[in-house]
């Protein structure tokens, strides 16, 4: 076997299409982690992922408690799906997730976007999805650089040692 030369990653293009706490945070943590390592990061929010950059929704993200087999009670027992249908349960679980993250110094979504853009990360919204959800640029966080097409996004994904990540 010949020795393979490892070339460091230069750029990541991350796509977020879902709007639950865990999907959005996976995206934000990957993006922030990239800029912290000096890796260029471009993030494309589409479909329900748009909630993360929509001013009205970004502070109200929830995690799904129905049909989520990995959801457990604090003690480790399975979380009954039927419990999840009760009013307030999803909100309570989501609030608990957020408080656990806060303890680890993981910021709320708006502050996380501040951190990523402070490090030079770029945030974009999908044109097709914003049209579908009837969202305008002014409905979105001020960190959103532009509403772009899939083609525009791919055009940014060129260059050596670039990866596209779908969270």
């Amino acid at each position, binding site marked *: 076997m010949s020795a393979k030369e490892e070339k460091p990653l230069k750029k990541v293009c991350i796509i977020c299409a879902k709007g639950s706490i865990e999907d959005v945070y996976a995206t934000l*943590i990957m993006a*922030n*982690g990239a*800029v*912290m*390592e*000096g890796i260029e990061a471009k993030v494309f929010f589409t479909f329900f992922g748009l909630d993360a950059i929509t001013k009205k929704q970004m502070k109200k993200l929830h995690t799904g408690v129905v049909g989520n087999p990995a959801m457990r009670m604090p003690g480790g027992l399975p979380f009954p799906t039927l419990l999840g249908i009760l009013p307030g349960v999803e909100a309570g679980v989501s609030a608990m997730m957020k408080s656990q993250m806060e303890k*680890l*110094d*993981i*910021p709320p979504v708006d*502050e996380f976007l*501040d*951190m990523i853009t*402070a*490090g*030079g990360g770029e945030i974009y919204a999908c044109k097709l999805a914003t049209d579908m959800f009837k969202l305008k640029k002014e409905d979105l966080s001020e960190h959103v650089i532009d509403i772009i097409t899939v083609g525009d996004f791919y055009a940014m994904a060129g260059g050596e040692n670039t990866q596209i990540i779908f969270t």
Partner: protein
Amino acid sequence: MATKNIAGIPVEVNEEGYMSDPSQWSREIAVELAKEENIELTEKHFEILEFIRKEYESGVQLTIRKVGKSGIVDIKGLYELFPGGPLKKSSKIAGIPKPASCV
């Protein structure tokens, strides 16, 4: 583990260049370590280095958010002072171990 001569002092560093013994650190060493990262240290840099050394000594897990809330510098400023890796580079220059933090 290796011994490296920094500013005329033999200093223990690991394979990535992080100092093994934070108590060996001095301002002179910081200046030399910063040069390796192409950073010229200013008083602002030193304020941050002192801050993260203090946090490290008190056993706190460092994050850029903590440094951003220190009142010394905001996160954008931190990226400007330590380009291309604010937490890693500042930790290296501050003579503390590589931060094991994802945020």
